[in-house]
């Protein structure tokens, strides 16, 4: 039987992990993906750590010019947070559009990133916002761009087995706006067939210093620099953006059966996201 521990602090968690040499470590966040994927395969080598009582993994706060979100914060909590809405609107979009109410009430941002599904919604939003992942292990700590946590293998992250994501730190940039959108088979409770997030500085009708990331294209967050350059043109001229994204999809998933669909869909999605971005730049609700 797999072991189960419920540490009450980060120190306790790291101490327990340090004692787990030779065992398969499972970090249990919200459990909404973990139970489905891992429950059938747990064995006596599995050491499961429930993270729900580790207070250091909670909290959404602004400090030193950055928004810090604990890795155990749920999608519902993030979507409803005013500080996050002001400084990380794309992330709030993604959190509010992920799964159903029931899933959003349990699924966590740390779990969503660490699970590393190509169709996950928060990674591309976080990447567009220059988010850094704060990572600790029993012997070290480091801070890396969120996209570095992801890998090009479905549902695998790049972290060492003894590493824990404690938080995501998003720099607050004055004059910047952000937005996220997705395309799926349903209007709600939909797994993304394509998703996209953009953050950019709005300046005299132009979007500059943009970061454009898309998911589901062989990664949960793939950057499109050509689209960023195209966005720097006037905000009402999105032809260049559409062209750049078509080439981006062709390069990302050559030969895949969904290529034609995604080449078409990404253009419509980009227009939706850009429209939301423009609305926010004008100070309108979007």
């Amino acid at each position, binding site marked *: *039987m*797999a*072991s*189960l521990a*419920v540490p009450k602090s980060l120190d306790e968690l790291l101490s327990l992990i340090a004692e787990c040499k030779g065992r398969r470590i*499972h970090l*249990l966040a919200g*459990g*909404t993906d*973990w*139970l*489905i994927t891992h*429950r059938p395969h*747990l064995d006596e080598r*599995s050491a*499961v750590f*429930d993270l*729900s009582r580790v207070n250091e993994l909670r909290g959404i706060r602004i400090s030193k010019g950055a928004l810090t979100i604990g890795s155990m914060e749920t999608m*519902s909590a993030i979507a409803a947070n005013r500080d996050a809405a002001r400084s990380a609107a794309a992330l709030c979009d993604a959190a509010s559009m992920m*799964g*159903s*109410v*029931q*899933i959003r*009430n*349990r699924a966590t941002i740390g779990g969503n990133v660490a699970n590393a599904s190509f169709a996950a919604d928060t990674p591309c939003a976080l990447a567009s916002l220059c988010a850094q992942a704060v990572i600790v292990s029993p012997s070290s700590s480091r801070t890396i761009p969120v996209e570095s946590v992801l890998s090009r293998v479905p549902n695998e992250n790049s972290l060492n087995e003894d590493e824990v994501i404690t938080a995501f730190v998003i720099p607050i940039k004055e004059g910047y706006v952000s937005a996220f959108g997705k395309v799926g088979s349903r209007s*709600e*409770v939909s797994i993304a067939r394509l998703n996209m997030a953009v953050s950019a500085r709005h300046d005299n009708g132009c979007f500059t210093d943009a970061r454009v990331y898309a998911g589901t294209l062989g990664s949960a967050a793939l950057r499109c620099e050509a689209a960023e350059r195209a966005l720097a043109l006037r905000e009402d001229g999105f032809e260049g953006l559409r062209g750049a994204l078509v080439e981006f999809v062709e390069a990302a998933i050559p030969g895949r059966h969904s290529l034609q669909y995604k080449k078409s869909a990404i253009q419509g999605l980009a227009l939706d996201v850009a429209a939301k971005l423009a609305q926010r730049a004008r100070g309108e609700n979007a």
Partner: protein
Amino acid sequence: MKIEIIVNGRARSAEANAKTRLIDVLRNDFGLLSVKEGCGAGECGACTVLLDKMAVCSCVTPAVQADGHEVTTVEGLEENGELDVIQQAFIDCDAIQCGFCTPGMIMSAKALLLKNPSPSKEEIKSALAGNVCRCTGYIKIVDAVAEAAARMGGSASDGIVGRP
């Protein structure tokens, strides 16, 4: 390990391991059979219960995470022999066909109305988006939730707003 949960207002305890889901404890240990397992993957909502007044899919909630918390199922809605206003509205609006999805629908509706006593139809549909009815009788279900909201607010206590 032993977990303790306030279930429908009553302190209960059960054994849980790494594989134990909340639905396992509710059905197998506590005999709360209103909690249905449909997909087992958090997609159909038949297993919806309230965890600290928030709707969750009990099939993808680790039992250990309910330790020390409050859980409400349909069995906990009835008070002094009286059905909850949402249950009665489902009956009065004919919002039940085969009935398998009904407990989950009612618990999602309960969570919505606890948070938002006067939801719009769109808000009701959004709150129920994670609950699948294979009989596809959604219109009457949405009507029943609107009716329950109206009865709770007292604005439509004599009429069933969803009926043609």
